[in-house]
């Protein structure tokens, strides 16, 4: 038990919590009845994935991915050791996730617009009531 805790949990504690956050989001997407609640759960699910990606680029003791002025001048002058890659966080996951966040809010807007259209047509945002009304609609025809 203790070795499991030391080898599996402690070095990956943040990944464990990301999985928990992801499970909260997934559970709410399946089990919640209100459509807005489902969308909030979906956003939480999304942030768990973004967190996983960004934390893959973290380096212990590293700074932000903006090159210092002096180091930049030295590297232009030809000093290859001026920029230490281990002291700068990995910028690639940041780039990927930065665009994903903005695309995420735009698609959240589309989903909320669909919610408003559903409310206009059925008068409710509860999933079971919407399903009942759709069924009644089919029975009429």
């Amino acid at each position, binding site marked *: 038990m203790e070795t499991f805790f030391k080898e599996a949990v402690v070095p990956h504690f943040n990944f464990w919590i990301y999985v928990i*956050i992801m499970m909260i989001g997934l559970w709410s997407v399946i089990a919640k009845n209100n459509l*807005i609640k489902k969308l909030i759960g979906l956003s939480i699910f999304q942030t768990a994935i973004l967190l996983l990606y960004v934390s893959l680029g973290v380096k*212990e003791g590293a700074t*932000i991915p903006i090159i210092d002025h002096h180091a930049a001048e030295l590297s232009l002058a030809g000093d290859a050791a001026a920029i230490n890659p281990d002291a700068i966080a990995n910028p690639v*996951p940041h780039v990927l*996730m*930065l665009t994903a966040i903005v695309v995420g809010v735009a698609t959240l807007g589309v989903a909320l617009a669909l*919610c408003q259209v559903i409310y206009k047509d059925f008068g409710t945002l509860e999933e079971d009531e919407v399903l009942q009304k759709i069924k009644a609609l089919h029975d009429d025809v």
Partner: protein
Amino acid sequence: MIVAFDIIILVFLVIAAIISLSVKDLLAAAMVFGIYGFLICLLWAEMGAVDVAFTEATVGAGVSTVLIVATILNTRRKSTD
């Protein structure tokens, strides 16, 4: 990267996620979701991803909360679960 800071924010993150999914008032859920966005922003600033933190501060805590509130005010505020 500071491990103690990391753990504190992650615990608050889980609490905020559970609260925002369990309150029945959707307006309160939207507000707690804004708090969740700010906590994520703090976590990213702490991980060294300043650009991502900046984006999350404007998008997650500002615009997406406003969009959810705009939808709630045009539909219904109470939810059954």
